[in-house]
């Protein structure tokens, strides 16, 4: 059970252009065990999607560049793989569900063909058999298999996302990366899709990285949570650690910004200011400018990652005195 399916070590990805360098991901370290779900939570521009694309080796180069780090998947470093080897991994070993089901599908191919395509790509199987597998996948995600001859525009948003999920799971991947899979959907449909993802995940024992900005969704489906800000993981731990023992001022701010559904709150406690420009990140802690507890020492140097309780990491100077082991110094 203690098998790590994915280990990301100190991953740094920058987008380099003539004018500027966008420091999208700065030294992310993560581990994911078999069958586990990790929620990667952050706001626009925090580096969530770059991390996901980075794992899939889908960062457009130029301008994207891997500056440092390792992505160990089942004991092998994905960053050392050739493009050909990566093609065998994508869709087969690691799959991705994209945010927008409206644009993720090809409008001129039937949905059956699109699901069959990925199956044929990774298995030696005839076109006819692939199509049969495709209809089975459609049934699995709750769409009548007989609709395989229809085109994406004939399906609603929720249905399209089901097709995207069918494509992602068609080759029984070990790792699923879901990038905001329900953001474009209505709540009642979101509920159906989350339910589907969770059931299929259990059935196939798939590990998952769920990228989202919605702390509510994470509470429903994830085991571990990583809060990402300015391309760094600022807090990392189990669901219990993050929700019931929130430590990092940014995470506290995120929770304070959400109106409470269960009781009427008089006033929200927003985080002041704005996200720093990733092309011009401040020295020291990237959150210091917006942080209510910022001290002078926060504005320079590398902020240590403190293990405040076993498995619960906070990247904040506030906890330095209480901290257990530190790294990154």
């Amino acid at each position, binding site marked *: 059970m203690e098998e790590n399916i994915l280990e990301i070590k100190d991953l740094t990805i920058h987008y380099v252009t003539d004018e500027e360098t966008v420091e999208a991901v700065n030294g992310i370290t993560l581990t994911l065990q078999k069958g586990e779900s990790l929620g990667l939570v952050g706001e626009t521009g925090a580096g969530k999607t770059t991390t996901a694309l980075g794992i899939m080796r889908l960062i457009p180069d130029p301008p994207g560049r891997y500056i440092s780090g390792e992505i160990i998947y089942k004991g092998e470093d994905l960053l050392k793989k050739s493009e050909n080897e990566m093609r065998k991994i994508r869709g087969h070993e690691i799959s991705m569900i994209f945010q927008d089901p409206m644009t993720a599908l090809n409008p001129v191919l039937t949905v059956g063909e699109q699901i069959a395509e990925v199956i044929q790509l990774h298995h030696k199987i005839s076109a006819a058999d692939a199509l049969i597998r495709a209809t089975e996948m459609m049934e699995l995600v709750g769409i009548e298999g007989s609709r395989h001859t229809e085109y994406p525009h004939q399906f609603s948003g929720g249905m399209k996302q089901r097709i995207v999920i069918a494509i992602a799971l068609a080759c029984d991947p070990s790792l699923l990366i879901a990038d905001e899979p329900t953001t474009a959907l209505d709540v009642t449909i979101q509920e159906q899709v*989350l339910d589907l993802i969770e059931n299929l995940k259990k059935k196939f024992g798939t590990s998952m990285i769920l990228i989202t900005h919605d702390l509510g969704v994470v509470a429903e489906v994830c085991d571990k949570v990583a809060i990402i800000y300015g391309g760094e993981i600022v807090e990392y731990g189990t669901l219990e650690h993050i929700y019931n023992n929130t430590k990092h001022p940014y995470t506290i701010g995120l929770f304070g*910004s*959400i109106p409470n559904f269960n009781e009427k709150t008089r006033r929200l406690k*927003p985080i002041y200011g704005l996200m720093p420009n990733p092309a011009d990140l401040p020295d020291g802690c990237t959150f210091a400018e917006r942080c209510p507890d910022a001290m002078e020492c926060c504005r320079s140097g590398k902020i240590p990652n403190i293990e405040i309780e076993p498995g619960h990491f906070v990247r904040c100077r506030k906890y330095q005195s209480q901290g257990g082991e530190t790294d990154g110094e």
Partner: protein
Amino acid sequence: MENDVILQVRNLKKYFKTPRGNLHAVDDINFSINRGETLGVVGESGCGKSTLGRTVIHLHERTSGEIYFNGKDISDVTKQQLKVLREDMQMIFQDPFSSLNPRMSVSQLIAEPLLIYKKCGSKGELATRVAQLMDTVGLASRLASFYPHELDGGRRQRIGVARALALNPQFIVCDEPVSALDVSIQAQIINLMQDLQEEMGLTYMFITHDMSVVRHVSNNILVMYLGSMVEFADSEEMFHQRLHPYTKALLAAVPIPVIGAKKERKLIKGEITSPINPGNECRFAKRCPYAKERCHQEIPQLVEAVPGHFVACHYVQEINQL
């Protein structure tokens, strides 16, 4: 009490003609809003909530029904009358990226309504008023010459708010004003809008799909499904007990950021159906877990099931054991 009502809508309908028949975007909606209060309008995409907001302020021409503003019938207005009316009725749009002219600077965008309505006699007066508005919505004065693409979503939405406030309106339709924003920025804008409401006595019609936000901002809540009203009540009452099966499902589906908040999922089957030529039945019947024969044969009327709490469901008493 009667004098407090700023906006009243009676039997409002808006149908769009399509090749396949009439699309019932807004069907027989009734409500009123008291001065200084907020009416939250919630529902999923395609339920007609935006069309309702736009019809109320004459961005769409209604098909039938009456709209009263400050006691005056404004159902039919001429272009001239509408221009006068718009001084008091404004709108904040959902998408701060497409609702601002990319070729105008921040100060030009905020000055635009003031120029159209000739509110300022001199250039100096105009500049003062624009600066004042920027200050009100929390935009730093150094941003005056910036263009929208140079700003983030939160600041752009502040421009939208400043534009809506420029003419000192009494009533603002807010169409998903925070849905395009990150949560930390969303909270800033909500707080800003609530402060402004308190200071200026504004009345809001707040259209959103976010149930947590709607509870936070609203005095009353109107729930829509496929163009029709399914439930209307005081916000606390609504969150205390939801009577319509759709509202129950909708609120149960909201993910709550608390561990173990949800034990099991109560999924509602299927998806929203087409609002084109709806039949003589309850529009939620196809997805409703309680649906019986009568639901497919008769449109339920909105009735006061509990004092102050209106529901359109044939079996509201039975389902809720009232």
